């Protein structure tokens, strides 16, 4: 090649010549672009249809009464007060339990545990747990918390079950956040004589906190929509009182919504749609908070 080039001078025409298969490559590029655009468009379309349908159905029942009234036999009086408060109770108890257990596990695995068979076993199991159907967690909650520990169908039993359910997500998200803290910051701390815990508390956690919080909020927003495990542990579907303490019986929004949609009267379906709007608004709020945290504490290193 080299020798040949030195002998013959290259003409301008040759320089401008297209590679042989350029037009084929351009075609392929267009086709794949089309496929991916269509896929993205389809999901977006479905989402719009879903939201439109729910809004057209539910908007008529979406008023202050919906949130301030208990469930009722009469659709026009029915509200989600008990379920709304129940969901907030459940989240308020689940959040600290799952945060402490999940972040604690992540810290242990990333910063303390030696990398050996035992820890890799724990690691694999945590990843696998994330794939276990939520009904199975409900069954565990029923046998362990409701019966064995005699907590009954209470908020605390529900919250512990929910915590187990979202624990794997929180552990994995927190581990990722902790792992992404640059080693050179940790080295700087250790090199000044800091202990493991001082380094974790003063360097690792502050840097990882945005990621950890985001993961926790997203996990909680999954828990908000879960129904199956709570049905398993026997959360009630009709309640005309507000929970008073951790041992109170309770219901949550998705259960209430499910209950209404399974009734024969058309009006209840509309109330359910209104309930879904409230649930979606809560989810949206939580996800926005997560995004806000992520942007506000954008990596500064």
């Amino acid at each position, binding site marked *: 090649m080299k020798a040949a080039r030195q002998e013959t001078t290259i003409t301008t025409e040759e320089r401008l010549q297209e590679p042989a298969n350029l037009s084929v490559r351009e075609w392929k590029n267009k086709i794949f672009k089309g496929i991916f655009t269509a896929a993205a468009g389809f999901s977006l379309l479905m989402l719009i249809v879903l939201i439109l349908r729910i809004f057209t159905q539910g908007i008529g029942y979406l008023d202050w009464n919906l949130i301030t009234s208990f469930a009722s036999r009469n659709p026009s009086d029915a509200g989600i007060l008990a379920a709304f408060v129940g969901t907030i109770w459940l989240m308020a108890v689940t959040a600290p339990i799952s945060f402490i257990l999940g972040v604690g596990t992540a810290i242990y695995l990333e910063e303390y545990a030696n990398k050996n068979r035992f820890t890799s076993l724990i690691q694999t199991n945590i990843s696998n747990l994330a794939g276990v159907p939520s009904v199975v967690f409900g069954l565990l909650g029923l046998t362990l918390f409701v019966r064995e520990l005699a907590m009954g169908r209470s908020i605390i039993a529900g919250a512990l079950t929910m915590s187990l359910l979202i624990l794997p997500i929180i552990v994995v998200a927190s581990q990722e956040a902790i792992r992404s803290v640059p*080693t050179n910051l*940790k*080295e*700087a701390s250790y*090199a000044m*004589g800091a202990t493991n815990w001082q380094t974790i508390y*003063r360097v690792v956690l502050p840097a990882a906190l945005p990621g950890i919080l985001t993961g926790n909020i997203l996990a909680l927003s999954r828990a908000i929509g879960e129904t199956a495990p709570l049905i398993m542990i026997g959360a009630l579907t009709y309640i005309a009182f507000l929970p008073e303490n951790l041992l109170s019986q309770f219901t949550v929004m998705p259960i209430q919504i499910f209950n209404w949609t399974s009734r024969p009267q058309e009006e209840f379906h509309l109330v359910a749609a209104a309930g879904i709007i409230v649930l979606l608004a809560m989810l949206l709020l939580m996800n926005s908070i997560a995004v806000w945290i992520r942007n506000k504490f954008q990596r500064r*290193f």
Partner: protein
Amino acid sequence: MLASKDNNTQAEEVYEPNTARPADSVYKVDQLNLWYGQDQALKNIELEIPEQQVTAIIGPSGCGKSTFIKTLNRLTEMIPSVKTTGGIYYRNQDIFDKKYKVELLRTKVGMVFQNPNPFPKSIYENIVYGPKIHGIKDKKVLDEIVESSLKGAALWDEVKDDLKKNAFGLSGGQQQRLCIARCLAVEPDVLLMDEPTSALDPISTLKIEELVQDLKKNYSIIIVTHNMQQAGRISDNTAFFLNGEVVEYDRTDKIFSSPDDKRTEDYISGRFG
């Protein structure tokens, strides 16, 4: 090799060693071997590092300079696959002894890294990090430490009005001097520096070199450098590393004028590396 330095009077004029008292050694390294998993990175290292002098470690990339300097404060322990044999004695204490506290060692032996690594905090918070972890809470004492450390690292005049500003706003050279100041705040005995100027521009490099000259009055300094002129300019002793071994260790003027080993000569004259 080093034992002969006391009667090398001609060099003493040029290199201005601390003649006030005879040089004790801060470190004695005895038959040190280190493996990353199966790969041996340090082989039979034997060195004595004198106090209040600048000891340079030179050698081509990958020859084990960083690994060696990180064994001196046991930072290599952060890597799980590392295995070490042999002994390192810091002021006659065996640093690998089970009863010897690694936190104490690292309080006495500060380290400056190749890339400036300030914490994502204010300049002030960066400096007081060390004192705080060692239990100093008094605001007045901390303020004094901040001022004296920044002065010690020749940074005070540039930042004294911006102490509350984030350290990431500083230039690379300023950040590196901040990292030096952060070490000084713990009042160490030894400073380990791993290619502290390799990420910096020539002017910042010069400032750090001057600073090193200044610091050796109070500290024993071990500096890894890729830059031979730098080793020649600032160090009293030089160890030449090659493939995990110490090929030659002697007074810097001797290494640079008449090295004993052919490989040292080749490296210094730029024939490889």
